[in-house]
């Protein structure tokens, strides 16, 4: 029997597989036994009510999804009254993803999350910071540090910080988050992208640009996971294009302690369960006793990244 348990900061998860924020909700419980998940991660919530972006909000590309859903939100009270009781029925730890337009607002929202049934906070700092003319917090180490410090001081809950891939300094941002008190990093959110329908001359999304996800982005985010895992000593949770156990293994070998599955669940609702079962089968086949042993298993000891050459 392979031991699938992994430790993310002070939390021990039954297995390393969980949903990515925004690709998981109560409707999936019809098909997937939530008790089998390593953790449950909510869609990002905000303090304020939000409607989200104009339609079309998604476009289908080759092996990728482009979305501009935004963060439609019914606010905190709705979440606490309606969503939280639903998730409390399951034994998997619940991670609540939060977002806010400023570091102070982030801290205020985080402070309201110390509620029974909430195991950790995932701060989605890939969202626009109004104090930096709308640039995402996670685009540079300074605004990352400011936001994460304030959130850290506002809550005793384990704090996961979700990074954006839309930065040239992901390792420095990762270190900033660690130094400011993050317990784990989630790498990463969607990649800023755009697509045009050349028949109609129109952008495919109602808000022109959006976030790319799905298998097509995997090599980019595997690279970022590797860079971040090398840069910090807190756990890294890999997220981007994972749809099979093999994908999850690759992320773990690159340095991830756990993984999140997003877009794949839209195509195959049981994707997370298949990844869990496949991970056990892989470890079994390779004679690896614990899934946790996969973390950082990539054989790169004799190799070095030439920073000058590796940047194309």
């Amino acid at each position, binding site marked *: 029997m392979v031991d699938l348990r992994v430790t993310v900061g002070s939390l021990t998860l039954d297995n390393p597989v969980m949903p990515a924020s*925004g*690709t*998981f*909700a*109560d*409707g*999936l*419980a*019809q*098909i997937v036994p939530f008790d089998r998940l390593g953790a449950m991660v909510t*869609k990002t919530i905000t303090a304020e*009510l*939000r*409607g*989200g*972006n*104009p*339609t*079309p*909000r*998604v476009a*289908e*590309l*080759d*092996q*990728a*999804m482009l*979305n501009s*859903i935004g963060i*439609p939100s*019914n606010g905190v009270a*709705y979440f606490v009254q*309606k969503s939280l009781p*639903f998730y409390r029925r399951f034994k998997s730890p619940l991670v609540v993803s939060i977002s806010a337009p400023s570091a102070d607002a982030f801290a205020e929202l985080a402070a309201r999350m110390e509620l029974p049934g909430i195991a950790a906070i995932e701060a989605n700092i890939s969202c626009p910071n109004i104090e930096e003319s709308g640039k995402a917090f996670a685009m540079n180490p300074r605004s990352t540090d400011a936001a994460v410090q304030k959130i850290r001081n506002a809550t005793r809950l384990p704090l996961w910080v979700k990074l954006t891939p839309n930065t040239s300094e992901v390792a420095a941002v990762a270190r900033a988050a660690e130094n400011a008190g993050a317990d784990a990093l989630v790498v990463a959110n969607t990649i800023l992208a755009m697509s045009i329908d050349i028949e109609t001359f129109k952008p495919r999304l109602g808000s022109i640009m959006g976030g790319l996800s*799905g298998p097509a982005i995997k090599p980019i985010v595997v690279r970022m996971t590797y860079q971040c895992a090398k840069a910090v000593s807190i756990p890294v949770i890999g997220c981007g294009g994972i749809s099979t156990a093999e994908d999850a293994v690759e992320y773990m070998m690159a340095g991830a302690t756990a993984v999140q599955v997003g877009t794949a*669940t*839209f*195509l*195959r*609702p*049981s994707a997370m369960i298949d990844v869990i079962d496949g991970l056990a089968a892989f470890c079994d086949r390779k004679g690896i006793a614990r899934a946790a042993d996969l973390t950082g298993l990539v054989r790169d000891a004799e190799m070095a990244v030439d920073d000058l050459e590796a940047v194309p």
Partner: protein
Amino acid sequence: MEALLDTRSHVPSASQRTADDVTARVVAHQWVNAEYKHLVLDAPEPAPLAQAGQFFHLECPQAGEDRPFFRRPMSVYKADPGKGQVEFLYKVTGAGTRGLATLRVGDTMRILGPLGVGFTLDESWKNIVVLGRGVGLATLAPLAEMAAANGVGVTAIFSARGPEQVMSTERFAKTGARIEIVLDSDGSSAVENVERLLRRIAREGKTGAFFTCGSDRLMLLMQRLGRELGIRGEVALEQQMACGIGMCFCCVRNFRSGNEVVSRRVCWDGPVFRLDEAMSW
């Protein structure tokens, strides 16, 4: 920014829903005309328990250049728990449906469903009118059968480009429905003409409720007449979908609710909605 989400929508909760992702096997798959195919699947429960107006999210195979990424939503055209079958009637349009069209008898595919909230019939209605354009009739056919089974009379108005695009009249006829066909080719499908037809049916006292699918113009017409004549109704709507089960919020549309405009998910709060609350798309 779009309208705020509707937080008061009275639809079944997640715990009350029973969809599943099952493997289905093709037992028949034939062209109905130059554009439409009829797909019959053997599928385990809960698939054959689908109700009129509900839909499935179908995994479409890749074929040649076509590599559909998402699944495709399709209304249930027929569901037979006795035989353990579900049927679909679909128009071949783009990558997904072209891929779907390559499925052969004996092939298997994943189908997620039954999904969404279907049509409702009120016991007090003696007669209803269903008005469908194009493949909208696929969505309305099981409703006509449900009505017949409940002793509710049906007038079915088919709107289509030409006679070749008129489908499944036999199925409606079998339920005892009265059938009216209006076409673009002879001009009879013009909104004014359909309006005259609906008013005549109303004068005959045959308009207990209105149901429509497949055309914005016809939806607006039924909505206007419904308001004027005090006739309730429902409309089945379409919107692009990724997850089909309420998670991604890509399938939202705006609705009038009291004095507010709210946004609802077509896959979760619908695809069938109150006619008076729908908005032009």
